């Protein structure tokens, strides 16, 4: 595709994404005091990451079994508090093994 064709598209994508990220960060300079709201914000990252992972991980490789193996490996290693990289690589290896044996 030509640059002329994709450039407006990419700039719209980048602009929308950037504004969504930037406006709340730049505009909200005060400390929030409301206890309910503070609590809500505390739980947001865990809820977001968890919702992004399930059920998407089961469809990430084309094999539900391989996705399941990756989850099992990741849960065990994360429970043992291994680093992000160790867990991510081990999950991929777990999925690879299941894919290789035709799961």
């Amino acid at each position, binding site marked *: 595709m030509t640059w002329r064709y994709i450039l407006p598209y990419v700039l719209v*994508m980048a602009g929308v994404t950037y504004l*969504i990220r930037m406006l709340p960060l730049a505009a909200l300079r005060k400390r929030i005091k409301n206890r309910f709201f503070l*609590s809500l914000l505390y739980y947001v990252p865990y809820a977001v990451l968890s919702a992004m992972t399930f*059920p998407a991980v089961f469809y990430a490789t084309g094999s539900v079994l391989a996705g399941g193996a*990756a*989850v099992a490996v990741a849960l065990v290693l*994360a429970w043992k508090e291994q680093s992000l990289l160790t867990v991510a*690589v081990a999950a*991929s290896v777990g999925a690879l093994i299941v*894919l290789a044996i035709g799961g």
Partner: protein
Amino acid sequence: MTFRKGLRDGLPIGLGYLSVSFAFGMMAVRAGFTVAQAVFISATNVTSAGQFAGLTLISAGASMYELGLTQFVINLRYALMSLSLSQKLDNSMTTLHRMLFAFCNTDEVFAVASGQKGLVGRRYLYGLITLPIAGWVLGTLLGAAAGTLLPELIINALGVAIYGMFIAIVIPPAKNDRAVRVAAVAAAALSCVLYYAPGLKNISSGFSIIICAVAVSAFCAWRFPIRVDEKEDAAP
């Protein structure tokens, strides 16, 4: 909270991004983009789900309006994250620095920054985003230039890397805090309901994430409010 500590915490994110952006670069070339265009998209957007959706829409000749709206829905979760992170920044994060840092406030950067004890500052945050941006752009370049040469098996297996990273972020705090455990399990369950329930299939994945995040966080905030004074004391 130095630049160096940020770099160290950002390394696993950057390596994790290598595999995901590798897949992105590969798919972009398959969809008809040049290597340089794929890299340009990654360098200007720095977002996984939004970019993958963008590939499909752009190559299908969608309207600007549709593209913008899709990005808005898929990426609206970042507004929640930025809102949440705005409460953790120290005084070194002036408006200008907030505007610069916002460019790379990804899911993982946000999760790692919020996992720090107390407030976080400019040096740490710039250290934290350096390797993820580098990994995201470099992975796209490698995937676009050479992705089609790799065996399909390995490419598919790499698809779970990002989820392994998510699990590694959520589990350690969930181990020690029952409320976080409830939030994680409830969000996963609700996300599955939205995905599988008949009639709800038309909800886009971006919108589903927002529903889960808001519903579950509000429930946990109501049932397990955090101790506010403790949070303020945690400032360095």
